[in-house]
């Protein structure tokens, strides 16, 4: 990226920071990682009015430079670690004009690091509505930095902000805020001297944060620790007196720059909404109604686009079969790649709907009310109100949800949340469930409105939440707490969702799903195709030879002969041999060796199941009649009994297995990344597989 200037966006949570980031960068953004840590780094580029390009870095939202969670710890290191070349040329501090006082705390901390700063005064319209008057020019004069009023939501003032960025000074001109030196004179002087740090506030931060800063060497960190002892430096006491000093500064600052209406305690709209949404009875009723609505929407809204995608692939496969000469290549493309790919792409509509609805819930501020309502219940089972967001996010995908547990400050709460999140029915299970449910559950309405298939799906989702809660409750007694947890959290005012944001999230997540899952699925499809197209030794040749004998060619039609040969070959292929090896283990669950192949390949990713089914059963399909996976599975018969393979018992047993088993390589990887210890993902894998086996066994024998 050829950026001329690097700009970091810093601000409190819920100040419209990501909206501003999206406006500034448009679709020119990418998500990476900060070096050494697993915190998402969102960067993008923005064209400045003077023709230069700015690289914009979106830093995690935080109330203060003192980190309370893993994500927040990145802010100071990006601003101070000169070794990695990440230090921005300019920081844009975005503040909420309707709540200047609290927002300016972070500004004063950033300003004291003496990096050039611009203040973006967001939500001016909200402040005006509330009767707050801000003398912007005086504020800018007193701070010594440009203050640009904007409305990120309405995209107002963005041009002026870009001009301010383009013409910003490359030296820090801001006024001092508080007397940093006097906070801890001895230790600041000594750290500054020994480590050649010219900024006293950076030196003070090293004293506070040296234990968590990855860029300090062990010797440096130990030396600072020794200095702390020497000067009897108490981090929390120092933080408390610094915060008080900063608020004194802010109060002086706001005294003649901001006028507020006299104590207007009248009901705000947000308060009125809260009275209903967090009501003793209605609150929970509404919450469950919203969840039910989401699942119904996933089914009913996606039906039409899904059938379009299915038709497209049937058409593509027919086309490929015509164009390509018959042989291994045609077979690989049709039965391997296209069959596998269609199995995944068909679920884009459902995933997009799910992500859109979840992002609306977060965007409106409703999700934090859910956290507020559920905290007491969640605490009973060893979780935390904040675990609700990862758990609900788990309906979409466990990977980002496990990453989002970083907002949970308490170690034990966070670990339990990580351990149970993969039990929540993620979107990758959705293809498996919808396919199996549509095979065995009739599509008709009960009680006029509820679709029987939708109800079956809802039951699977409820089961997932119930199991997560029970496992969490057990773990509450297994794990030992390391520190006390707290639940001090802002309840943002309700807002209408930013539709641009919703659409962007929907697009972004679906893209990630297709790219990540797509890669795995194509790879697995090709491997599977090879495994089922070739067999050990000369078994295939012998089958060909056997069926070339006149007792077969004379008595059977060519059509049924091809079918018999194909299924004989599948059974003798590498995949078939392997499936037979594991068959004794999965037979008690009602699964045959073909399902065994799908189960094993699904340990890479659950959604591979559908593609695998498509690949395996395309062997038996009629060559002239290209069918969808569902039709193929519906017609699948047990060769010994002639009965359909997918009975109610088998389908539900399979769903149980997918509900509990840890069949997702990405989740295993992310759990390791978040816990930095292989024992966590190993324990998770073991307990989930054991649960899966037991649940499938019980359900199969109960329904059989």
């Amino acid at each position: 990226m050829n950026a001329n200037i690097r700009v970091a966006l810093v601000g409190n949570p819920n100040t419209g920071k990501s909206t501003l980031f999206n406006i500034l960068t448009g679709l020119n953004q990418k998500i990476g990682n900060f070096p050494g840590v697993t915190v998402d780094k969102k960067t993008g580029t923005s064209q400045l009015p003077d023709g230069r390009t700015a690289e914009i870095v979106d830093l995690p939202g935080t109330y203060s430079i003192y980190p309370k969670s893993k994500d927040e710890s990145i802010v100071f290191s990006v601003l101070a670690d000169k070794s990695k070349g990440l230090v921005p040329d300019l920081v844009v501090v975005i503040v909420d004009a309707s709540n200047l006082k609290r927002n300016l705390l972070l500004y004063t901390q950033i300003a004291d690091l003496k990096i050039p700063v611009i203040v973006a005064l967001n939500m001016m319209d909200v402040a005006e509505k509330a009767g707050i008057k801000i003398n912007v020019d005086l504020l800018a004069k007193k701070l010594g930095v440009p203050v640009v009023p904007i409305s990120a939501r309405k995209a107002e003032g963005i041009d002026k902000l870009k001009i301010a960025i383009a013409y910003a000074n490359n030296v820090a001109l801001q006024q001092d805020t508080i007397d940093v030196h006097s906070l801890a004179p001895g230790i600041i002087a000594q750290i500054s001297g020994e480590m050649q740090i010219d900024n006293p506030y950076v030196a003070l931060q090293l004293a506070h944060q040296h234990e968590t800063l990855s860029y300090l060497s062990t010797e440096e960190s130990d030396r600072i620790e020794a200095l702390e002892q020497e000067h009897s430096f108490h981090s929390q006491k120092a933080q408390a007196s610094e915060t008080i000093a900063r608020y004194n500064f802010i109060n002086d600052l706001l005294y003649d720059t901001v006028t507020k209406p006299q104590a207007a305690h009248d009901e705000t709209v947000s308060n009125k909404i809260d009275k209903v949404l967090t009501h003793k009875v209605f609150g929970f009723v509404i919450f469950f109604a919203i969840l039910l609505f989401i699942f119904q929407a996933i089914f009913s809204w996606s039906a039409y686009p899904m059938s379009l995608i299915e038709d497209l692939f049937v058409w593509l496969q027919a086309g490929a079969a015509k164009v390509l000469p018959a042989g291994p290549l045609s077979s690989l493309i049709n039965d391997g790649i296209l069959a596998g790919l269609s199995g995944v792409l068909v679920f884009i509509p459902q995933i997009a709907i799910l992500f859109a609805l979840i992002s609306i819930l977060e965007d409106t501020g409703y999700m934090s009310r859910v956290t507020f309502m559920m905290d007491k219940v969640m605490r009973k089972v060893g979780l935390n109100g904040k675990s609700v967001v990862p758990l609900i996010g788990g309906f979409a995908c466990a990977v980002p949800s496990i990453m989002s547990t970083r907002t949970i400050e308490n170690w034990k709460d966070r670990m339990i949340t990580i351990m149970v999140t993969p039990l929540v029915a993620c979107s990758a299970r959705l293809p498996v469930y919808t396919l199996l449910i549509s095979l065995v559950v009739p599509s008709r309405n009960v009680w006029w409105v509820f679709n029987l298939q939708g109800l079956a799906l809802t039951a699977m989702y409820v089961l997932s939440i119930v199991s997560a809660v029970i496992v969490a409750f057990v773990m509450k007694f297994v794990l030992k707490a390391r520190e006390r947890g707290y639940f001090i959290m802002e309840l943002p005012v309700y807002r209408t969702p930013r539709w641009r944001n919703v659409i962007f999230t929907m697009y972004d997540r679906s893209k990630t799903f297709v790219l990540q899952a797509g890669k795995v699925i194509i790879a697995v499809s090709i491997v599977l195709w090879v495994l089922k197209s070739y067999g050990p030794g000369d078994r295939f040749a012998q089958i060909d030879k056997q069926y070339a004998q006149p007792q077969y060619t004379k008595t059977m039609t060519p059509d049924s002969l091809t079918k018999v040969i194909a299924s004989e070959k599948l059974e003798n292929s590498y995949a078939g041999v392997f499936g037979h090896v594991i068959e004794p283990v999965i037979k008690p669950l009602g699964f045959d060796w073909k399902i065994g192949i799908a189960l094993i390949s699904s340990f890479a990713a659950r959604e591979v199941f559908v593609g695998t089914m498509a690949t395996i059963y395309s062997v038996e399909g009629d060559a002239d009649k290209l069918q969808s996976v569902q039709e193929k599975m519906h017609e699948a018969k047990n060769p010994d009994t002639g009965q359909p393979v997918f009975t109610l018992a088998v389908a539900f047993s399979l769903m149980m297995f997918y509900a509990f088993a840890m069949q997702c390589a990405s989740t295993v990887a992310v759990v390791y990344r978040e816990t930095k210890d292989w024992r966590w993902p190993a324990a998770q894998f073991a307990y989930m597989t054991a649960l899966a086996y037991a649940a499938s066994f019980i359900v199969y024998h109960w329904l059989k």
Partner: protein
Amino acid sequence: MKLSQLAIGEVGIVKEFTDLEMSVKLMEMGCLPGEEVRVSRIAPLGDPIAISVSGYQLSLRKFEASTIILQ
């Protein structure tokens, strides 16, 4: 008097904190001595509570509220 003892709609002024670790977090969030706090609602199950402080809503558990002493 502790913040946790206020009923919905009641107002108080923060005097001091009994817990240093909690006080650091609370003060950063704008809940500091001299500031007016008002209990705006209590969660359906009785805990946590939501207070309005320095122009916005803050939720905290009853236990956490009990570390805030009012004037």
